[in-house]
């Protein structure tokens, strides 16, 4: 018995090494699911505030540019309001539930972002306090950015579209054929559109937008433009390469979108036994 204990004491550093490695791999695996809530990440209050201070300083240099973008966005929205808003009629017609807005939007700022790894994340300066929930979609004026993964009181961590674990339901705008956009982990400016069958006539230059099927993003938010279409190694599908419309190296101010009816949709899917992953 004593010999065993002595032996164990002699190899104690190796045992510690194995223990810590197993612990680290456990952390990697438990953090790897795109939906899983993680405890140790940048949505933690202390870490979030450190990252926010850093971002506050760095953002000071890009204010002019951010303003420019916001002004352009505002002008566009004003134009849309003008066309939507009708002059008051003598007979008010109350909107029924079919017209109820399905999506709710809020704004936020990215305080930390990465784009060089295979699993990239971003941190936002909005949290549960501001009504952010896991599963909400993130996009900006150029196109989609990602999806909220976990939320703390003041901060939220999102999975970037530049994350091999995130699939976004999408469609080719001109032909309405749908597929999934997934990043292949190589170039931060390009992604792949998967599961588009061979017979589809996709061309370089076609726009890819969200399909609205996954109930995270509303229909029609830009993702990118097709840059090349090749036959894939799988004989059933095309290999479509997309130039992403969002410049992930400069993502700063973003919008968050929440689907109000996601609970209803999910329970419906469950009742009809449809497995809706994305």
């Amino acid at each position, binding site marked *: 018995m004593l010999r065993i204990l002595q032996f164990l004491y002699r190899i104690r550093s190796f045992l510690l090494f194995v223990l810590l490695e197993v612990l680290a791999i456990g952390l990697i695996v438990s953090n790897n699911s795109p939906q899983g809530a993680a405890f140790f990440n940048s949505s933690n209050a202390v870490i979030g505030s450190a990252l926010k201070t850093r971002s506050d300083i760095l953002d000071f240099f890009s204010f002019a540019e951010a303003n420019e973008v916001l002004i352009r966005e505002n002008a566009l929205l004003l134009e849309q309001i003008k066309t939507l808003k009708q002059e008051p009629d003598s007979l008010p017609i109350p909107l029924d539930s079919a017209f109820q807005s399905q999506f709710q939007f809020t704004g936020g700022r990215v305080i930390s972002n*990465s784009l060089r790894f295979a699993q990239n994340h971003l941190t936002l300066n909005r949290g549960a306090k501001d009504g952010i929930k896991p599963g909400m979609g993130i996009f900006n004026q150029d196109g989609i950015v990602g999806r909220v993964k976990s939320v703390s009181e003041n901060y939220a961590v999102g999975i970037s579209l530049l994350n091999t674990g995130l699939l976004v339901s999408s469609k080719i705008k001109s032909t309405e054929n749908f597929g999934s956009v997934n990043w292949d982990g190589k170039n931060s400016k390009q992604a792949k559109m998967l599961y588009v069958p061979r017979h589809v006539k996709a061309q370089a230059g076609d726009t890819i937008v969200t399909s609205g099927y996954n109930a995270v993003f509303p229909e029609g938010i830009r993702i990118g433009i097709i840059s090349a279409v090749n036959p894939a190694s799988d004989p059933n599908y095309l290999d479509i390469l997309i130039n992403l419309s969002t410049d992930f190296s400069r993502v700063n101010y973003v919008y968050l979108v929440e689907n109000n009816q996601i609970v209803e949709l999910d329970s419906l899917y469950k009742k009809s036994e449809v497995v809706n992953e994305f």
Partner: protein
Amino acid sequence: MNFRNFILHTLLLLLLGLIQILFLKNLALFGVAFCFLYLLGILNLPIPIPHFPLILISFGLGLAVDVFYDTIGIHAASATLMGFLRPYWLKATSPTGGYDDSTKPSQPEMGIVWYISYSLPMVFAFSLVFFTADQWGSGSFFGILNKSILSSIFTVALAIIVQLLFFKRRRGI
């Protein structure tokens, strides 16, 4: 290790961690050469430091960087491996006559050739584990190898530059 050295090393670890988190997070030359400058803190710990605390320090430092990188566990796993390998590699690269008890395995004290032969394989081992874990199942082997080789070269080059600029050579008696 006396108390002054202990404080100095703690400060060095903190400072390197901060620099890594605040400035080097999104730095990647040509998109492939990453910089893991905080490894300098593990590489330059005094030679007689016991194995057990060394592994613990490596793990702690890796985990701290991980939290900011949102890559929980990946830095920790790779840094732990590096901490584990360090004494064996130090033994393998020991110069004739062995180490002086008070020397540190740093560039100003041991010379640039020895330092490269000591740190490059260690950082390479770190990078290999790091990129394998990061691109698990999605990256090709050559992509991982490419990133690991370039990142270790870049990290070691920067580590040497930092030591040349900021570390004073201690005068021996």
